[in-house]
């Protein structure tokens, strides 16, 4: 979507059905020099992951089409190596616990601290086994 010269293994994916939040996170990641592929619909991301390597995906929990946790569950079958960072607009301890149990790398409640967030994304990216 953005930089043709970057390989998929360097591109962070982002899924949020709120377009303005999606755009703002995409910009935040880019402002830190990261390459981003943004998806407004969970299903579009699911079809993308079947044909592309995804080192890190940032998922919103509460999406109308499919919840972030459900998406994570499907993803673990399709792409077990993908690191998952969850963001949520609600203070929801139950969802946080479930997410962490399912092995997400990080969990952020909106609005979040940009430095911590970018640090978490970079460390998740570093954890991904290079092909």
């Amino acid at each position: 979507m953005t930089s043709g010269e970057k390989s998929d293994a360097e591109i962070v994916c982002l899924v949020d059905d709120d377009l303005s939040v999606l755009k703002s996170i995409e910009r935040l990641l880019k402002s830190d020099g990261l390459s981003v592929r943004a998806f407004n619909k969970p299903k579009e991301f699911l079809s993308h992951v079947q044909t592309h390597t995804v080192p890190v995906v940032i998922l919103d929990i509460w999406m109308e089409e499919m919840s972030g946790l459900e998406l994570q569950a499907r993803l673990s079958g399709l792409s077990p190596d993908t690191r998952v960072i969850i963001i949520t607009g609600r203070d929801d301890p139950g969802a946080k616990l479930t997410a962490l149990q399912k092995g997400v790398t990080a969990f952020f409640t909106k609005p979040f601290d940009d430095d911590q967030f970018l640090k978490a994304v970079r460390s998740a990216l570093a954890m991904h086994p290079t092909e």
Partner: protein
Amino acid sequence: MSQANKVAKGQRETEEPFYAGQTWILEMVAANAPLPEILTNLVLLMEAQEEGMLCSILVLGSDGMRVRHGAAPSLPEAYVKAVNGASIGPRNGSCGTAMFLKRPVVVTDVLTDPLWADYRHLAEICGLRACWSTPIFSAQGDVLGSFAMYRQEPRGPNAEETHLTQVATHIAGIAIERQRVQETLRERDARINLAAESADLAFWVIYPEQNTAWMSDKGRVMYGFDSNLPLNRDRICARVHPDERAAVHAAFDRACASHGLFESEHRLVLPYGKTRWVIVRGRCLVDEHGHLLELIGVTIDVSAQKQAELQLQIQREEMSHLNRVALMGEMTASVAHELNQPLTAIANNASAARRFLERGNIDPKLLQQLLQDMVADSQRAGEVIRGIRALVQKDKTVVRTVLNLNSVIADTLRLVSSDIALRESVVVTEMDHSLPQVEAVPVQIQQVLLNLIMNALDAVEARPPAERRIIISTRSLNGESAEVSVRDFGIGLPKDRPDKVFDHFFSTKQTGMGMGLTIVRSIIETHGGKISAENAPDGGARFFFHLPATRGDSKSQAA
């Protein structure tokens, strides 16, 4: 009595004084002199016409059974007392019998006549021998009393005496009947006044032709008019509150034009600024040619009821407001989410801009877009806050607008979407796209829906997440009203009386005031609709309400 003496003494010589006496007595009747005075003068006039003649008048009581003393100035007091209160009958002296038989009774000798058996000793003491009694009739032929002549020698009446009796009964009839009519009128007046005063009623009559008006004392107090101020329609209408004056004038003109009824509820503004709420009802009276004579009516002071009503209204609004605040408290997750989204976007965009600037490689176009988005998101956050304020604010303006309930449902669901998701519940909508539009206060309908949705969410809470289902459906009832149904799959309502849930303080929940559904019902009913609750056949509760379609264009556009 002094006037009576003037005409009564020694005037037998010519007819002239007798006529003058009659005229005098009739004038007394016309002047509404007291009846005993009139009758006494009449008796004295008659007695003056013949030497040695005594006369008496008895008045039949309103029960038609017993006689009362009328006048007998020359008869001994013992006799008068004995007769007063006696009943009439076929053998009750001359007078009692005459009244009973409705014809003259001539007793030539009271000492031998069987009719006098009971009064004989009395007659003896008084020295009375003959008594001729004639009933006094009203114009309608009812017996009003009797006029009697007494002689101390046993004999019957001569022609002159019979003539005098005719004159006497005629005049006495007029006097007694007039007094009866006045008594009836006085009684009726007293009754009406009593009723009027206890009902806080004012009477008034407006004569449009003459531009004058009359008002009862109570009415003058109610309208704040001095007791001697001449009244007319404009003076009365000037008391009407300026906001309502035009409407009252119009209603009045309509009634006058159609010779129909006048009815209005409005405020009066009295001198010194006091305000009264009144209900006014009037009707036109027309003559036999259909010409408007007067407008007659009553004014009822309903200030106290109105005050109580307003108080109740304020309390209802208070409760309704508290309910909305409580709902807002239950919707915190949704509210937080709605605000978090734009705030997150703003924060991220700002952070991104800072980073781009630090790196010194920002595309001015990107920066512009980014700033534009921040403005848009700030506005979005503002909208959310406005929405919350609208819901939590006290009703300042309750303006009805034409609404499509499908859209209101969709908006409301968006408002609570986070809470629905957070409670792992699903709301399914089944909208009838031909739903007629309704006229309603948007915030109040939203409040109704929020209450029903929050209740439904509570109802399904105990079920496993997969079964936490709520169905909201709409349908058109013959295009005449729009029905909304909120159905859950929870434990259902009290079996015996599902409608009990609308009662005050009825609650099955630990939290909540038990006011929500009462307020819901009051809102729906204020909008001319109806709400019911029932247990769905396959489990769970179903609440459904309908609101009347707006007149005119009733079909809504597809939602």
